[in-house]
C-alpha cells in the first residue's frame, strides 16, 4: 500500500516502489547516519585526547552531517517516491534550522554551564551551576534587570505619544504626507548615529547646542547625564525618539483599516468625539496596539547601542541594560561562559515574560460579548 493513499489528488504520478528501492533508501539514510556517527565519534575521541587521528578541525563532522542530510533527503524520495519529494520542501529547511539554531543553542547551554575565560590557560571547564550562583549574587546583573523594568515601563508613554501622533496623521491635516515621512525619519536613523549626534553632540554639556540653549535661559547646572534619574530619562527619550515612529506607523495602519461607518454610526447614536474614540476606535485598535507594544517590548529588551555609546551604563550603573552589561562581560572581560549564561537566562526571562504578556493580551483583545 502506498503511503500516499488517500491523498491521490495531490499525487502526480502513481508510485510503484519496489522493495529493493525501499531497502536502498533505508540503506542510504542509515548508512550516511552511521558515517556521521562514526566520524563524530572519532573526532570527539581525537579532541579529547583519547586517540590521535590527526584532525585539525571539525570540518570532517560538518561534511559528514552534510552527507547525512543529502542521504536523508534522497532516502525519502527512494522510499516514498512522490510523497518523499513533497517532504523535500520542508526537510532541508528543518535540517538547516537544526544545524544553525538548535545545535548552537544546545552548544550554547553547554558553554553557559562552563567556566570559560578566554585568558584561562585551562580553557573551558564545566562548572555546573556555578555561573547561576554567580549571577544570583551579581549586583551588576540585578541592577541592569531593574533598569530594564524602568525602560520597559517607558513604553506606555511612548505608546500614548505614538497613538496621538497617529490620530493626528490620520486626520485631514495640511501636508499630511510630508508629516508622515518626517515623523518616520528618526526610525531610519541608526541608534549609533542617534547616540553620537544627539547624546554625544547636541546634549554635550560644554558645547552642545541644547546645553547652550538652556544656559542662555539662565539654567546654571546643565548636565543631561550626571544624575542617575536624569541620565536614565535621557536614554529613554533618545530611544523613544527613534522608535515612537515605529509604533506610530503601525497604529496609523490600524486606524486606516477601521471602517468609517462605525464612527459615523456612533456619531448618529449621539457619541461625542471622546466617547467615539474611547468606545469605538480604541477597542478596535486594541489588537494592533497590543502587537505594536509587544514588538516594541522586544526591541526595548535588546536596548544596548545607545547606552554603550553615550553612558557606558553610568553614572554608577543607572543606565546599564542587560545587553550592555553582557557586552562588557564579553568584550572587555572575555568571560564567555558567564556572559553566555547571562544571555541564556535573559532569553528565558524574555520568553516567559512575552508568553505571559501574549496570553494576557489575548484576553484583553478578545471581543466582549
Amino acid at each position, binding site marked *: 500500500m502506498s503511503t500516499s493513499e488517500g491523498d491521490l489528488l495531490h499525487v502526480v504520478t502513481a508510485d510503484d516502489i519496489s522493495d529493493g528501492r525501499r531497502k536502498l533508501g533505508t540503506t542510504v539514510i542509515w548508512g550516511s547516519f552511521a558515517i556521521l556517527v562514526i566520524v563524530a565519534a572519532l573526532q570527539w575521541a581525537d579532541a579529547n585526547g583519547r586517540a590521535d587521528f590527526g584532525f585539525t578541525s571539525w570540518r570532517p563532522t560538518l561534511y559528514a552531517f552534510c552527507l547525512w542530510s543529502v542521504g536523508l533527503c534522497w532516502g525519502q524520495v527512494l522510499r516514498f517516491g512522490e510523497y518523499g519529494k513533497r517532504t523535500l520542501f520542508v526537510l532541508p529547511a528543518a535540517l538547516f534550522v537544526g544545524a544553525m539554531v538548535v545545535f548552537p543553542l544546545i552548544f550554547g547551554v553547554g558553554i553557559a554551564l562552563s567556566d570559560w575565560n578566554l585568558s584561562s*590557560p585551562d580553557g573551558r571547564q564545566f562548572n555546573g551551576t556555578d555561573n547561576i550562583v554567580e549571577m544570583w549574587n551579581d549586583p551588576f546583573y540585578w541592577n541592569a534587570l531593574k533598569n530594564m523594568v524602568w525602560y520597559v515601563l517607558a513604553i506606555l508613554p511612548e505608546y500614548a505619544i505614538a497613538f496621538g501622533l497617529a490620530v493626528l496623521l490620520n486626520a485631514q491635516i495640511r501636508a499630511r504626507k510630508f508629516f508622515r515621512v518626517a515623523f518616520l525619519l528618526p526610525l531610519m536613523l541608526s541608534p549609533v548615529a542617534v547616540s553620537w549626534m544627539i547624546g554625544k553632540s547636541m546634549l554635550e554639556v560644554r558645547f552642545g547646542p541644547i546645553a547652550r540653549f538652556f544656559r542662555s535661559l539662565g539654567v546654571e*547646572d546643565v*548636565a543631561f*547625564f550626571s544624575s*542617575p534619574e536624569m541620565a536614565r530619562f535621557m536614554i529613554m527619550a533618545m530611544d523613544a525618539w527613534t522608535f515612537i515612529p515605529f509604533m506610530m506607523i503601525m497604529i496609523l495602519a490600524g486606524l486606516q483599516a477601521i471602517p468609517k461607518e462605525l464612527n459615523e454610526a456612533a456619531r448618529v447614536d449621539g457619541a461625542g468625539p471622546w466617547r467615539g474614540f474611547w468606545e469605538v476606535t480604541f477597542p478596535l485598535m486594541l489588537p494592533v496596539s497590543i502587537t505594536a507594544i509587544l514588538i516594541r517590548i522586544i526591541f526595548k529588551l535588546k536596548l544596548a547601542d545607545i547606552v554603550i555609546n553615550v553612558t557606558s551604563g*553610568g553614572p*554608577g*550603573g*543607572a543606565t546599564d541594560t542587560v545587553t550592555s552589561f553582557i557586552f562588557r562581560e564579553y568584550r572587555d572581560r*572575555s568571560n564567555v561562559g558567564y556572559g553566555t549564561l547571562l544571555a541564556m537566562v535573559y532569553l528565558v526571562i524574555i520568553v516567559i515574560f512575552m508568553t505571559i504578556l501574549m496570553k494576557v493580551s489575548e484576553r484583553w483583545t478578545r471581543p466582549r460579548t
Partner: protein
Amino acid sequence: MKTELYNMVARSRVNRRRLLQGAASAGALAAMGARPAMAEAHGSVRAEILKIPGVGMGSPTDADWQKVGELCLGPTKERVAEGEFAGVELTFMGLNNQNLHNFLFRGFLKPWEAYTGATINWIDLAQADYNARLQQSIATGTVDFDIIEMGAPFEGDTAGRGLLDEMPEWVKEQIEADDLVGYLQPPVGTWDGKTYRITIDGDCHTFAYRTDYFGEGAIGGPKVPSTWQEVNAASLALKGQTDPLTGLDAHGFLDPLKYQWGGFGFYFLADRASSYVKHPDSPAWLFEPETMKPMVNNPGWVQAIQDVFDLVAADAYPADQVNADPNTTAFSQFLAGTGSMLTWWGDVGSNARTSDSSVVGDVVGFGINPGSERRFNAATASWEDEMNEAPVMSYIGWGIYVTSRVSGDDLKRKAAWSAAAHLGGKDLSLWTSAYPSGFQPYRNSHFQYEEWEEAGYDRAFVEDYLGSNVDSYNHPNAAIEPRIPGIFQYYSIAEDELVKGINGQYGSAQETADAIAAAWEDITDQIGRESQIALYKASLGM
C-alpha cells in the same frame, strides 16, 4: 610618529627664509669648492629615508613606504641570500587603524619579498576587533598567523602559553636591540628569560599643563605642580577663578570620572596611584608577586582614589565630569581650553598644535607625571616620607612577534624573523617615528634632535614634547604593567567599580578599593591563580 604631529610639522613646511638659507649655504659651499665628506652608509641611509617624501611634502604613499623598505634592506642582505626564501609563504596579522600599521608594513616588506622570494598573506583587523580575534584564536587553538603585530600586555596570553617563537640571536644583532629606551629593555619583551618581541613602538603617559595657569602672578600659583598633592591643592584653589584664555570657569586636573573605556580608563587612576605605590625597591605595584593578592586596596591606592573623591566632593571638576571619558578630558576639555592639567599619551602634545579645535597650542607645556611627597611601601606596610615619581608606561607599545607555527620549519622560521627584523630595524624605525605610522619614538637614537631638526622639524617643540616622553621612558622607577593573561579584564572591572564609588554607591575610597580587589581576586581564581602567579613573576623578570 602620530599623524597629527606630522600634520603640524607639515603646516610649518619650508618657507621662503629657510629656502634662501639653504640656497645661500649651498652657494657658499660651491664657491668654496668644498665637497661634503662621505658619510658612513648607516648615516646616509638615515638622512636619505628622512627625505622620503620630505617633511611638508604631503602624506607618504605606498610608493614612499616601498622606497624606505628598499633603502633599509641592508641588514637583511647581510644575513639572507637573494631568493633564499623562494616558495615560503607567511601570514601576518596586524591592524589597519587610520590606514596605517599593516598598510605601511605591506610597503616596507614588498622589497623584502622581492629580494628574498617569500610571499606574505595579510590579515587586517580593526582595533576594536583585534583583542577579540586574538583571544578567540588563542582560546580555540586556531592561531592561523606566523607573524603578529601585538601589544606587550598580551605577552602573557601568548608567550605564557607557548604560542610564540623565541627570537634568534642574529635578530637581536640585526635590530640593534641595545638601542631601545630603558623601559623597553628586558624584562619587557621577554618571558621566562627568553626574548620574543621586536619592539616597534613605545607608550607612556605624560603630564600636560597650561603654561598660562602657572607662573608668577598666575591663577594656579607660581610653579607648575610636580606632585599629586600639589595637583589637588591647585585644583581646589582654582575653583571659582576665571580661565585666563577662555574667560570661562577655571579648573585644575581633569580626571576622566566616567573611566569606563574598555580597560584603558584604568591607566588614568594608575597615573595617580603609581607615585604612591610603585616603590623603587620592587617592580610590583598591582599585585603581590607571591600570591597575586591585589595591591589595589592598599593605603597607597586608596589614597589615589581618595584624591579623586576629594575633588568630586569639592565640586572642583567641570560640570558633568561623571560623563567624561579620557577622550573627553583630552580632546573636548583640555584642548578646548577647559581645565589646566591632564595626563595622556603623546597625542595631546601633537594635537595641541595641530587640531583645529585646540585653543591651547601656545600655552601648553609637558613634563613627566607628577610624583608624590610620600610613598607606601607594600613590603613594610608603612608610609615613607620620601619623594617618589613613577611615570606609567601605559600599554608598553606595539611589537612584532613570530608564532610557534614556524618553529618546526627552519627556513620558514628564518623567513618570519627576517621579515619581523626588517620592520623593527633601527633605520626604518627612525622613519616610522618621523612620519605618520601610528608609532611613537622608542629608541634612544630617536631622540637625537639634530636629526629631527635637519629633517625640518621645529626643535623647540620636539624637545619639549618628546623630552617628556624620553624622561618617562628612561625613568628608573617607571611603573610597567604586568603582562599577564587577562590584564585588561582586571582593568575593566576596576573601571566599573571605580565609577560606582565615584557615584556614591560605596561608603568610602577604601570600600571602593576593596570591591575592586574582590573582583580582581575572582578573575585571578577564574583564570587560575597558580598560573597567574607564575606568569606574573615571569613578566616581572623575577
